[in-house]
């Protein structure tokens, strides 16, 4: 099996094919390649490892050295392409005519288990020579893969879900089972692939399956015609939605994206396994401020999500909590058909039982969500407006007599999100994007007035349509005052409405404030720069909420 097949797979997956097509492509790849290559393919596609053997800069320098290319020329090309591995791949194409050596036909396994790891055993000179040798003997179609693996930048729009689906289709076994098998340290080997495609399911695998999640809809005005007493009110937490499952002694944590994340949160798994009952809970995972009893920012949770087997100190630094808001199964009995208000009673009943009867204290990692009891709809609105104070995004409103169905079913759960904060700001800097946005100015910095001066207060790169991005890009090129490397300072002329979720004091910024999730919500072509907001307005916004 050659690397060629994997390169072709990459091209196919990278084309904007439908999900079904991608699944077919993957399935066919698995069918026609060795188990060992298949396991490497899965390893790469799921981003299990992105070890960087050499840096993009190193790669560019090396190319420049070998082929006597000016570095500035490579850098110019980079601005257009946005990815070192791809720049070198394209430049190598230009060198292919001078190639005389016989092409190698190594397999994905050989490349990843031997050729590349062996590079680190060499001294620099030998290493450079070896890379040059590989470039010159590897068929052109494989250069991109090689360069990307080398620089640890092999990423592709394939989710674990897609791999899961294709394996599931390949052997005709439920996706949840495959998910479970893909969990953990997937080490590329013949055995790990054979395990993945084993048609016999063991009991433990069966036991870990989550229920399809019930999702909330954005609120609609018609809800206000109903009696407030028909609904249960909860805070809308900004964490990871999760089903916590304990069956036959085994705990599994499933995200809404059908990912099993036991390894990221071992302390939760451990604690919950002490509970005597079996259950399925629906809830939210958060990094929790135990002192003030509110959630920390989502950014802290991000420090935990992608980290497997976190150290003890990480666990202490970012303490997590699971807040359950629903009970779906208890001791093997599926209770999703019971009304929400009754499920809540069960949830409260079991929670108090577990608090008393569990040997280890569970309340430092697990609780059930508090309910809110607004008197009427205007009161609910007041609660919603207060949600920023406890770091929530608004309210979740659930119909008391509803059953737990699946998907985004209308009229059962509603989300009532707090409006974003907004300021009108002036565009003052632009920077070239990378990756997909290479060659365009797509990263923007915005400023607010302080006396007669414009002070930078936020950077944003999302919110404009492709057409607007192109239009703005043209404008930027024509209205540049100065260039500093990839950054351009711009004539203050364009005003944008910037929305954000949170505003706080920051000593790190000249403006003295930092905002969370800043994004462009409108290009205010109707406004002149003098109409833009002042920093003072930003401070006022901050006072208003705290």
């Amino acid at each position, binding site marked *: 099996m050659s690397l060629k097949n994997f390169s072709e797979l990459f091209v196919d997956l*990278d*084309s*904007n*094919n439908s999900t079904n*097509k991608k699944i077919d492509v993957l399935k066919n790849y698995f069918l026609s390649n060795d188990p060992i290559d298949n396991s490497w393919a899965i390893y790469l596609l799921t981003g299990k490892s992105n070890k960087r053997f050499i840096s993009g800069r190193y790669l560019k320098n090396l190319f420049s050295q070998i082929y006597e*290319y*000016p570095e*500035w*020329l490579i850098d*110019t*090309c980079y601005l*257009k*392409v*946005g*990815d070192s591995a*791809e*720049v070198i791949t*394209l*430049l190598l*194409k*230009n060198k*292919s005519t001078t190639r005389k050596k016989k092409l190698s036909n190594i397999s994905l396994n050989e490349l990843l288990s031997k050729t590349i790891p062996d590079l680190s055993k060499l001294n620099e000179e030998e290493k450079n020579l070896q890379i040059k040798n590989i470039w010159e003997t590897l068929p052109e179609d494989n250069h991109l893969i090689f360069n990307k693996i080398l620089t640890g930048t092999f990423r592709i729009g394939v989710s674990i879900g897609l791999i899961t689906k294709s394996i599931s289709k390949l052997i005709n076994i439920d996706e949840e089972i495959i998910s479970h098998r893909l969990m953990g340290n997937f080490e590329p080997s013949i055995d790990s692939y054979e395990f993945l495609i084993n048609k016999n399911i063991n009991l433990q695998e069966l036991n870990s399956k989550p229920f399809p999640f019930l999702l909330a809809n954005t609120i609609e005005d018609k809800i206000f015609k109903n009696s407030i007493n028909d609904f249960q009110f909860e805070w809308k937490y900004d964490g990871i939605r999760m089903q916590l499952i304990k069956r036959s002694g085994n705990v599994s944590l499933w995200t809404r994206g059908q990912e099993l994340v036991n390894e990221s949160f071992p302390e939760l798994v451990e604690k919950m396994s002490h509970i005597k009952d079996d259950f399925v809970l629906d809830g939210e995972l958060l990094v929790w401020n135990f002192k003030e009893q509110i959630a920390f920012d989502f950014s802290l949770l991000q420090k935990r999500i992608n980290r497997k087997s976190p150290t003890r100190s990480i666990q202490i630094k970012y303490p997590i909590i699971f807040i359950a808001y629903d009970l779906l199964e208890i001791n093997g009995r599926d209770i999703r058909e019971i009304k929400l208000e009754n499920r809540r009673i069960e949830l409260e009943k079991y929670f108090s039982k577990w608090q008393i009867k569990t040997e280890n204290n569970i309340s430092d990692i697990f609780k059930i969500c508090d309910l809110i009891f607004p008197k009427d709809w205007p009161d609910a609105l007041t609660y919603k407006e207060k949600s920023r104070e406890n770091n929530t995004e608004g309210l979740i409103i659930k119909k008391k007599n509803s059953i737990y169905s699946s998907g985004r079913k209308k009229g059962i759960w509603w989300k009532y999100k707090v409006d974003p904060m907004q300021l009108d700001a002036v565009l003052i800097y632009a920077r070239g994007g990378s*990756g*997909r*946005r*290479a*060659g*365009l100015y797509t990263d923007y910095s915005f400023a607010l007035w302080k006396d007669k001066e414009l002070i930078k207060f936020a950077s944003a790169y999302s919110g404009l349509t*492709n057409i607007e991005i192109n239009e703005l890009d043209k404008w930027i090129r024509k209205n540049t005052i100065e260039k500093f490397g990839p950054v351009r300072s711009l004539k203050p002329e364009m005003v944008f409405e910037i929305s954000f979720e949170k505003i706080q004091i920051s000593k790190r910024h000249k403006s003295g404030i930092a905002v969370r999730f800043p994004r462009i919500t409108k290009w205010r072509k109707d406004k002149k720069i003098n109409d833009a907001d002042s920093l003072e307005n930003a401070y006022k916004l901050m006072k208003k909420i705290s």
Partner: protein
Amino acid sequence: MRDVVLRTKQEYLIRYKDGNLYCELADIWIDPSKPVKRALITHAHFDHFTFGCEEYISTKETAILLKERVGNNIKIKTFEYGEEFKINGINISFHPSGHILGSSQIRFIFAEEKWLISGDFKLQKDDTCKQYELVKTDYLISECTFGLPIFKWDESNKIANDISKWITNSPDKTSLLFCYSLGKAQRLLNEISQTNFKGNIYTHGSIHKMNNSYKKLGIDIKDTIKIENKKKIDELKGSLILLPPSLSKGSYLKNFKNIQTAFASGWMSIRALRKRSGYDKGFPISDHADWDGILEVVKKSEAKNVFFHHGDSETLSKFLVEKESINVLFFGKQI
């Protein structure tokens, strides 16, 4: 004879004026973007043509293609490739540039000084037009649309095979391939007809029209079916439809069901552009020269002085000055 090196910018035989190439001695403009008295037209693409000039001068093929596109209400004088004509003592001639049918480089000779305007050109094989002709010159004004070393074209038959595979791998889909109606479409048809793809090929009216013009001019173009608005969807399964890029956005695509889309353009060699383009797939094939092509022409033309326009001229210029010691000049203000 005066020493050319001592001339000021204003005294170059050809210079940039109002964003266009202009020869003052002959009072003639090259591919002007606004109405002028007399315009030399290198080829029949619309970004090289504007209405309202009193007189156009081009090759015979370009004149015919232009009239097909804009009607007979323009006054065009035509010359054969290589045929010299004189305006105000300047000898002017067209030479094949390999870009599309009828496309040309234009050479000016005055007082033993040779100037060559490359027009849009490519060196790659293209059976639908005359092969690029090497013309030696003292001054070269070259396009450099793809003037970065990351651009290196594959053989066109390789791209055609990729297209063929792309279609046949999705037999249940209708494959929409977007490409420029004039030049690219005909070149693709010619190449695709030599691949394994033997299904039906449909073309949009604008492409169909250009195909017919090519045929009239003696170019062998595969017969295609003109796409009608209410074609039965099932018939189109597994077939290829060539469409102009202007139709890729908007409601036109709603005429089809279960489609896959692709764009044939040199820019598609860059992954970021490919992803951003919104097409499912990109086929990098261009009617412009790649980096090597431009360098080859600069060297083989033996030009002592080179100007660049259309593209990243800064980079290419810096490279030539540093690495090849070629004298690169700049027009006053380029647009």
